[in-house]
């Protein structure tokens, strides 16, 4: 009799031990669900997931909040590009002078125009302007890359800018 009771108790204990972790994880799973489902609706799931998960504010954020985090990521990518552009300009590569200068204007436009427009649009509630700003940022990065006719020293940064921007635009589309 005692053996059966022990086995039964042990059995229930086993079940409890295996199911408890899932109960504890429920809350995080729901937040992850929104991030995952949102990212699945973008052209680059990996870029989306990496960008959002790197920011702790993303858990518990709604779609508008996720979009605003992506706009912050756009800022960081734009700054990466501008920093490298300035470095290259200082190191004085003369064959790329015009292209670098053109890229500097484009990234300036992203930082001073597109990104503030996107941030304000999301904050104030007219999201289509955030989609426009993100799409323009993606285009500016592409135009910059094209300036070098295949010999770009900024490919990594331009790709990053482009990819993060199209992901942002796709997330914003959910708000329209």
């Amino acid at each position, binding site marked *: 009799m005692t053996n059966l009771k022990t086995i039964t108790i042990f059995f229930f204990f086993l079940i409890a031990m295996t199911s408890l972790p899932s109960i504890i994880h429920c809350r995080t799973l729901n937040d992850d669900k929104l991030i995952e489902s949102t990212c699945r609706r973008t052209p680059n799931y990996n870029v989306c997931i990496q960008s959002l998960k790197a920011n702790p504010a993303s858990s518990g954020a709604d779609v508008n909040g996720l979009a605003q985090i992506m706009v912050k990521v756009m800022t960081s990518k734009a700054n990466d590009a501008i920093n490298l552009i300035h470095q290259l300009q200082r190191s004085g590569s003369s064959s790329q002078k015009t292209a670098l200068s053109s890229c500097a*204007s*484009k990234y*300036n*436009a*992203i930082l*001073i*125009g*597109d990104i*503030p*427009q996107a941030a*304000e*649009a999301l*904050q*104030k*509630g*007219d999201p*289509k*302007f955030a989609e*426009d*700003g993100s799409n*323009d940022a993606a*285009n*500016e990065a592409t*135009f910059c890359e*094209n300036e070098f006719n295949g010999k770009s020293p900024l490919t990594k940064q331009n790709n990053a800018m482009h990819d993060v921007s199209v992901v942002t635009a796709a997330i914003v589309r959910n708000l*329209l």
Partner: protein
Amino acid sequence: MAASDPNGPVYYKEWYHFFYQYNPNDAVWGDIVWGHTVSRDMIHWLHLPLAMVPDQWYDINGVWTGSATILSDGQLIMLYTGATNESVQVQNLAYPADPTDPLLVNWIKYDKNPVLVPPPGILPRDFRDPTTAMLTSEGKWRISIGSKINKTGIALIYDTEDFKNFELKKGVLRGVKGTGMWECVDFYPVSTMDDVGLDTSAYGDGVKHVVKVSLDDDRNDYYAIGDYDEKATKFLPDDVKNDVGIGLRYDYGNFYASKTFFDPSKKRRILWGWITEYDSECVDRTKGWASLQGIPRTVTFDRKTRSNLIQWPVEEVNSLRMSSSEFKNLKAKPGSVVPLHVGTATQVDIVAEFEIDKLALEKAVPETTDYVCRSGGGASRRGALGPFGLIVLADSGLSEFTPLYFYVTKGISGKLHTTFCSDQSRSSLATDVNKKVLGSVVPVFNGEKLSLRVLVDHSIVESFAQGGRTCVTSRVYPTRAIYGDAKLFLFNNATDTTVTASIQVWQMNSAFIRPYQPETD
């Protein structure tokens, strides 16, 4: 600086007033205030001080779009959307500080704003752009505000007696699945019996109504014509297949957030529309400005087709015409480009008529699919009966050019099908501009010649096909076909027909636009 939506257009004490969404600080959308400009004649415009700025909690995040209503006693009120300190969209009442000032320079906001907040079931950011009010048979003022429920765009209806207290009418004026948020709703009557415009409150025999929306989802303006039942507060489109948001557009190019108003002095309904940039933001910052307003158009019901509106540049534009050149019965053989010697062609008004060979029409083989501008391949893809038309903003070597063309096909039934397109694909050597081919079908009756009017102004091309049945606005940015190097051509790239064209071209003066000087004006 950047502008966008037209706001509160109105005719008051013999002045045309035009307000607009404006960012005084940057060439992008943001920091939105109401700009204000006035004219007695639609040609001489005075820039006035900003009419309204975000200075109350209920509009601190933006003084957004709104409309003017003139009450029965001549009093003018303005209803507009404010984005509150918590970014909730509410409707606010404002009125002129001095109603005896015909220039309406200063405005007062009602001290108990907002007068309307999002009703239950409507999200706080889906409630904006109140319309001009119309007087109901009960003597109440009725407005519409666009919104959405999930992905169904809707127009809500409110009645009011004082513009301070509103009653939400049950149901919606109209709702269409899948269209998304309805911005800048416009709701107005048109006469089915003649070409006069109607006061916004007109109702009864010989009157149909138009519901127009700006779709947030695709940045285009759509309209539907139908019947409005005042008692039931319902609008039923004449053609449900072309319901609001899924059918006809005012313009098949660049044209958004448009709004009409009734001009009692000339008994016409005038349409203003926002024309955004088709280039990159970087360039906009360099030039320091972004966005235009299209040439104002009159709007009437097409009494021939009875299924669409007709838009036409206001007649005042004709007063900017200067010297003209006329070409009668020019024959353009298949595959030809004919230069039209008019001097510089950057600021011109063109009126043209085209005819195809009757024999070619009879011999034409029916096609199974209809021609579509977007995917038709532009002006270089030849067909039996098209493309043919004009080439604007072209340099003499045709390294940059913008064709505006008709493309005619015969359907299986033998009926002719005509499309009008504005081809931006070769408009510029620049790589960061829009290169789409825009346009749509245009209704043409037997016996009608194909007609086209075009207003060209440096980087904007406004085309009106078949008397304004189909309109296409393009923004193009040539780098060579500019100023003295911009030329004009007639072209015919059809394979099986000669095209006979009669064309008149006027050099256009610039409108007179300057800041208001209180001491001297």
